[in-house]
């Protein structure tokens, strides 16, 4: 087995093309980052200033954060979101890759049909599943529990699809060689397949985390007590009948996403680049 260098690091010295790339990326930054920065800066403004169209606050204040952290149950919402996201991420990483692997690397009758059935579950809007889910949850006592919050997202079809595509890029010989060496079927998946799709796995992890972080309708319905609310459900409380506390929404949004973005920033090498080993006989 040979370690192959991938497209990861360009060797060339800066050329005209690189300069163009920097210019384009910098221009794009304005478009991509401006709304985010505005949101972030708004979190430091008193409510009146939020409505004034200045980017920088005249008076910087931490009141919004103070209010969100100490006068609402935000820490609890955050914890709940974290628990749900953690539960589901573990399940998603394992099951989606296992199913994705099975659908590409194992031959069995009905493989395409199974894939299509799994994919088709993506095509029914979850909004229409909440009523049956809730009926089910009351029957099994899942209402107001972490399990109840998490179960719909444990094996998302999109994750299966993603991992299937990543396993497709791996050469078949690799697994046949493993089989000849007497590696068990689970071992082929766990020890040979999985390490090779780490970039996909990491991307799936972050997507799933963000998806859970923003899920609204189901967490709203399944959480009956205030102590089981997640961040998006809690933040919805800032919109009342007669007014919306945009200062608090901005502060809560900032508090909720900055950690996610930081995790992404710090671990992006692992998330995107991983260390890609493409084993080829040679």
């Amino acid at each position, binding site marked *: 087995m040979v370690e192959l260098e991938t497209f990861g690091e360009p060797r060339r010295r800066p050329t005209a*093309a690189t300069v163009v*790339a920097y210019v384009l990326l910098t221009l794009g930054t304005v478009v991509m980052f401006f709304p985010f920065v505005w949101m972030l800066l708004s979190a430091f403004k008193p409510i009146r200033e939020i409505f004034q169209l200045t980017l920088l606050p005249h008076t910087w204040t931490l009141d919004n954060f103070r209010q969100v952290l100490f006068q609402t149950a935000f820490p609890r919402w955050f914890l709940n979101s974290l628990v749900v996201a953690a539960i589901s991420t573990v399940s998603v990483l394992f099951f989606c890759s*296992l199913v994705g692997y099975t659908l590409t690397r194992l031959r069995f009758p009905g493989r395409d049909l199974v894939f299509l059935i799994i994919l088709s579950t993506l095509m029914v809007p979850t*909004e229409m599943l909440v009523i049956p889910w809730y009926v089910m949850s009351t029957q099994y006592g899942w209402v107001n529990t972490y399990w109840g919050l998490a179960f719909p997202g444990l094996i998302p079809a999109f994750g299966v699809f993603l991992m299937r595509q990543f396993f497709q890029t791996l050469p078949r010989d690799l697994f046949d060689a493993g089989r000849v060496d007497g590696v068990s079927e689970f071992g082929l998946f766990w020890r040979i397949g999985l390490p090779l799709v780490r970039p996909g796995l990491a*991307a799936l992890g972050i997507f799933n985390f963000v998806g859970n972080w923003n899920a609204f309708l189901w967490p709203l319905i399944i959480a009956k007590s205030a102590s089981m609310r997640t961040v998006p459900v809690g933040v919805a409380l800032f919109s009342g009948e007669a007014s919306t506390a945009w200062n608090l929404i901005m502060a809560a949004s900032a508090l909720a996403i900055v950690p996610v973005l930081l995790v992404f920033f710090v671990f992006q090498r692992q998330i995107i680049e991983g260390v890609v080993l493409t084993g080829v006989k040679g």
Partner: protein
Amino acid sequence: MRRRPHDAPRSSAPRSSAPRPPDAPDRSRRRRRALSLSTREAIWAYVFLLLPLAFYAFLRIYPAIQSFDLSLHRWHVDPAQRTFLGLAYYRELIGDPKLHRALTNTLLYAAIVVPSQLVLGLGIAVLLQSVRRLRPLFRAIYFSPYVTPAAAVAWVWGWMYSVNFGVFNTALIAWSDFVTRLGLAWLSIPPQAFLSDPKQALPSVAAVVVWQQLGFQVVIFLAGLQGVPRMFYDAAAIDGANAFQRFRFVTLPLLNPVMVFSVIISTIATLQLFDQVVNINFTDQGGPLNATLTIALYMYQLAFSRFQIGYASAVTVLLFVLILTVTLIQLRLLQRRVEY
């Protein structure tokens, strides 16, 4: 009475202790071996799929069938009082002008959003890949819209699009002033209504969707690009391929699985577009004049603001059929191109 072999009581079949003809073990081992080659893999596949398929059957497919069943009934909170209507709601669908509008809009959204995301997502990923310094920072910045909560996104874009206060119109006015002063008044562009204009509202919302989902696409493509062995580029370079040719004949084919994923997922997501549309015009969702209405939003309004859950379920079935058809076509067209 004849018994089938597997019904035979254990005690009456001491096969293992029975004397065998000399050639028997050989044949049976060969048979087992033959069986294992083709079937062992399949058995393992089913073992791996057992739990996930049970999950899908129980928590996704069964509820979906229940939901489809609701489309044949007049909705009532008490299941015993749901009266069977047959296909009445489906007949109603055919003549529902609001649904027709939602359908057209939804397809239009997909036509704008999916190609834009593919091209921009891939383009940005390639650009990011070609720079070394500041790359982590650029990546985080391009990813940031994807993690921003929908409410905050809607607020910020609502202001940017604002006719009377928004930055876009401020820029247009400044531009027009500038060119007028240069004596090029014909180059000036009047302020636009954006979200308030029934003609511009849909593209304006679509732009927000592309903006927000771009981070997702970029990460997918970056991960895909990482998997392309450098060896292939070097080989192509030696063969005298220029940068474009390398991209066209090396990168694109090897990225195919990732692109298939990207296109299909963003199509499925866009055909179910809901969040951004609701939030950006919260008091006239899908407005003005249904200009931004999507099928998913119409379904949601029917179910949860008007309690017409039976009819909403019929809309869901329609949406499901639409997405399934489009996805099957895409899988056909896109997957065939490349052999693995």
